Every structure is written in structure tokens, then in C-alpha cells.
């Protein structure tokens, strides 16, 4: 259950421990006992067919989704719950919100606030949730927009931006809280093919920054490049996980093999 992490600058924050997590929607069990550890500064890419529970798992990490069983800890702290007596109790709203500021999330449909400009989108949470001064937040916000290559579009409204630009603003927004962990939920699935790379390039750059990344994606080439752990999920379970090399070239399980034979084009050279 440990991930081999190559010698990297020592990162001490952003350890994710997922232990036997279960989740049902009505009668359908979408997570059937998931256990996974992502080391501080690690990059875990979750792949698998639609409906395999990838997104749900991602959403349990910042408690957007409650779990029915098991638990998740970030740096040893339970997410969304606390132990009182012998039982787990859900945290109060205030504490849940505080925990969420340590975990940034980027959505498939961007979910930018359309009535706020790019910069206003980025500085809203730092001002409200972290009580930073407006001037401070603005300076930091412009810096982040610059980092994703959009400093000159700070005053634009989301609908005045292309899909790729919107997703880069969304990434800057997630970064504005200086999170230990960033979650990406199919960040390029809603984009035109020619816009995919500008977003992937930004994420690639983040992968080396020491922030722990958990990425759900269908971009296999990107997964191979950027991941230090690839997790293959199917039907609410982790079928196998390992280094990209291991998962893509010599998967142990038949299910993994048959999935990759469908999603990776024959010309794709591993």
C-alpha cells in the first residue's frame, strides 16, 4: 500500500490515506472498500471506465461526498469526521469548510462563477475563507493568473474566455488557497482537442511543485508522463495500481489489459 516515490525534494505535507472507503447511492454501491495511499507531493492518476467510481472517490477526498464506511485522512487528520468516544462523528460545517481550504478542486465543467471576472473568481475564496486582505489576495491572484498564462485576461468574464482559458482560471482559483492537495476531475474532458494541451501543460508544471495531485483522466499519454502512481478502477474497486511503466506495459490483471486495449490506439507507442 505504499507508493515508490523517486528521490525528490523532501515534501512533508499532503499525505492522503484512504482506508476501506465505501459509498452507496441508493441500492448501488459505487465504492466497494477502496484503500489507497498517496505520498506527500505524489501524483496519482486514476483511470478506468465510466461509472467505475473514480469521480466519486475523488469527491470523498474533500468531503463533497460523505462516505458510508471507512475513512480518509490527510496528514493524519480525518477528513469530514472526528473521533469522539469510540465513534466517528461528522464535523461541524465550519470545520469542514476549513479542511476544504487545504484541498483544491478542478472540475470537468470548470464551474467558474460566470458573473465574476477571472480575477474575482480567483480571489473570492482567499478573502472569504482565509480572511486575507483584498490587496494581498489581488496581488497573489494576478501572480497565479500569470502562472497559468492569463494575466492579461484578469478582467474578462468566463464566457469571454475559451474553454482552455476557463479551465486555467479554474486551476488558478484552486491554487489561490495554497492547498496541500489538488484534485482534478477529468479536467480536459469538456475541452476541444486542440485546447487540451494548454491545460495539461499547466498541470504538468504543477506535478513538480510539491503539491500532491490526484487526477482522474482519460488522457492516457498524459497519465504516463505525469503520474508516479497509476490507479486502475473498475466497478467501485481498485483493480490494480503501480508505476505507469508497470500498469501500461505489463498489467497483472486481465481487466486492466482489456481496458487499455480499448482506450489506447494501436499506434500509441508506450
Amino acid at each position, binding site marked *: 500500500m505504499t507508493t515508490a516515490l523517486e528521490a525528490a525534494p523532501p515534501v512533508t505535507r499532503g499525505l492522503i490515506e484512504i482506508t476501506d472507503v465505501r459509498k452507496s447511492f441508493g441500492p448501488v454501491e459505487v465504492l466497494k472498500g477502496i484503500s489507497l495511499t498517496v505520498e506527500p507531493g505524489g501524483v496519482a492518476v486514476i483511470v478506468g471506465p465510466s461509472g467505475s467510481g473514480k469521480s466519486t472517490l475523488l469527491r470523498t477526498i*474533500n468531503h*463533497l461526498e460523505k462516505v458510508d464506511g471507512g475513512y480518509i485522512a490527510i496528514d493524519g487528520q480525518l477528513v469530514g469526521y472526528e473521533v469522539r468516544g469510540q465513534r466517528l462523528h461528522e464535523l461541524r*460545517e*465550519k470545520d469542514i*469548510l*476549513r*479542511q*476544504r*481550504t487545504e*484541498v*483544491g*478542486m478542478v*472540475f470537468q*465543467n470548470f*464551474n*467558474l*462563477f*460566470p*458573473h*465574476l*471576472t477571472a480575477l474575482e473568481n480567483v480571489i*473570492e*475564496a482567499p478573502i*472569504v*475563507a*482565509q480572511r486575507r486582505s483584498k490587496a494581498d489576495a489581488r496581488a497573489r491572484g494576478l501572480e497565479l493568473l500569470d502562472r497559468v498564462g492569463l494575466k492579461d485576461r484578469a478582467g474578462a*468574464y*468566463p*464566457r*469571454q474566455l475559451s474553454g482552455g482559458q476557463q479551465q486555467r482560471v479554474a486551476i488558478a*482559483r*484552486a491554487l489561490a*488557497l495554497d492547498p496541500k492537495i489538488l484534485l482534478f476531475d477529468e479536467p480536459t474532458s469538456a475541452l476541444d482537442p486542440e485546447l487540451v494541451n494548454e491545460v495539461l501543460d499547466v498541470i504538468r508544471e504543477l506535478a513538480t511543485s510539491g503539491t500532491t495531485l490526484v487526477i482522474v483522466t482519460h488522457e492516457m499519454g498524459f497519465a504516463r508522463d505525469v503520474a508516479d502512481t497509476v490507479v486502475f478502477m473498475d466497478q467501485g474497486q481498485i483493480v490494480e495500481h503501480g508505476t505507469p511503466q508497470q500498469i501500461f506495459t505489463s498489467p497483472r490483471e486481465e481487466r486492466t489489459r482489456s481496458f487499455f486495449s480499448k482506450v489506447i490506439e494501436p499506434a500509441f507507442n508506450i
Partner: protein
Amino acid sequence: MAWSLATNPRWEWGVVAQWFTAQSIVNGLVETLKLTAIAGVLGFVLGFVLALMRLSASPLLVSVSWTFSWIFRSTPLLVQMLLWYNLGYLYEKISLGIPFTDVRFFEAQTTTLISQFAAAVLGLTLNQAAYSAEIIRGGILSVDQGQLEAAAALGIPAWRRSTRIVLPQAMRAILPTAFNEIIGLVKGTSIVYVLAYSELFYTVQVIYNRTQQVLPLLLVATLWYVVITSVLSVFQYYIERHYSKGAVRTLPLTPLQRARKYLSLHAPANRTPKEGTR
């Protein structure tokens, strides 16, 4: 029809002109505006709270809000108004204190507490709140769930999520119907004539009962309602324009900007340089 409006002597436009700005009519007009403003503002504020209650996770709040809307939407406004005014007949005294003891913080005769004005405001406000709650709820429901999720994921507190993220976006769906309601309320205030409250419509009635100039005086009231509604429609245009920020790529020009653009394009001074060779 327009011709007959202008030429038919029975409209008695002279009488209309004579009464249009008469002191009593203006006083009535002020009362109408006062009722509209108070009932409109209080009604929508209460409606907003009711809408949030209805959308909350608490079954108690949901049922309180539902029951409120059910009661006030299913009884005629006229009856509500008369009930409020005659509350003194049902309950002689209103008091605030600790139940089952003699401790009273406050006690008053109902009839002195509920004047015509109070009955009118109570009736209009509560009724308005019930309707606006549904309008606001509809607007909130029209906002994409992903917006709330993104805000929650950023650690933004619930109240701020409602007021800063959801409500401004909901406004686009709320405003057209809300202005319908407000305009309806302007004219709806005329119903308080049953309380003999001297707003515009009641004042007009009193005058024509005395002078027998029924049609011209009704025309006076009608014209004033048209004026108020027109002013409100202008407000509506600008407020909707404000809330369309971000929803459209470029804001539509205001009539003033459009006029300026037209003038600058057609002004003779600007026409010549285009043809001139520089």
C-alpha cells in the same frame, strides 16, 4: 380608438387635467407609492428568507415555509386584509409575555395596534412574501448545482454562497417575474380601499362620489398607474442589464448610448472625413 379618446367630449379631459395634480390626488398617490415600497421591500425580503427555508435541509423550516405559502396563496387577499383589520374583534388584546404566568412585557388593545395602515401593510406584505418566495426559489433552482459545489469546495461559507454566488445568478431568472409582481402590487394596492385607506384609488372614489365625474377621475387614477408602471419598466431595463454582466459577452447598449451612437454616425460633421482622403 385613439381618435375617440382625444375627441369624444365625454372623456372630459378638462376635468382630468384639473384633478391630475390636485393636492388630494397627490396625497393618495404618495400613499400608494408608500404602500408599494414598504410591502414590496418587506415582501421580497421575507420571501427570500422563506425561499432559503424551503430549500434548506431542515424538515421543520421546509414545512414552516410551505405552510406559510399555502395559507397566504390559498386565501383571497381581500379576506386577509379584512381579517387583519378586524383582528380586534377576534382578539381584543395583544400581549407579549411568559405563557401561564402573569408576566407581561407588552400589552395593547388590538384596535389601537392595528390601524388601517398597519392592516394594509400586513396584508400586502405577507401576501407578497408568499408569492415572491416561490419566484426567488425558482430563480435559485435555475442556478447550476456545480456553482454551489465549486463554492463549497473552495470553503466559502453557506450564507456567502447564497448571497455572493447563487443569488446574483438567480437574479436573471427572478427579475422579470419580480417586476411583474411589483407592477401588480402597484395596482394591487388599490384593494386597500376596502379599509377606507386613502390611497390613490380610494381618493378617486371619494371624489367622484361627490362630483359624479366618474370616468374622468378613473382616468386620472389610470394615468398615474401608467406613469408609475412606466418608470418601473425603465428601472427594470437597467437592473436586468446590470445582472446580465458575465451572462452575455457584450452588454446591450443603454438607450442613451444608442442615441449617442446614432447621432455620432449621422452627424454631418462625422460624415465628411470618411469620404475625405487623408
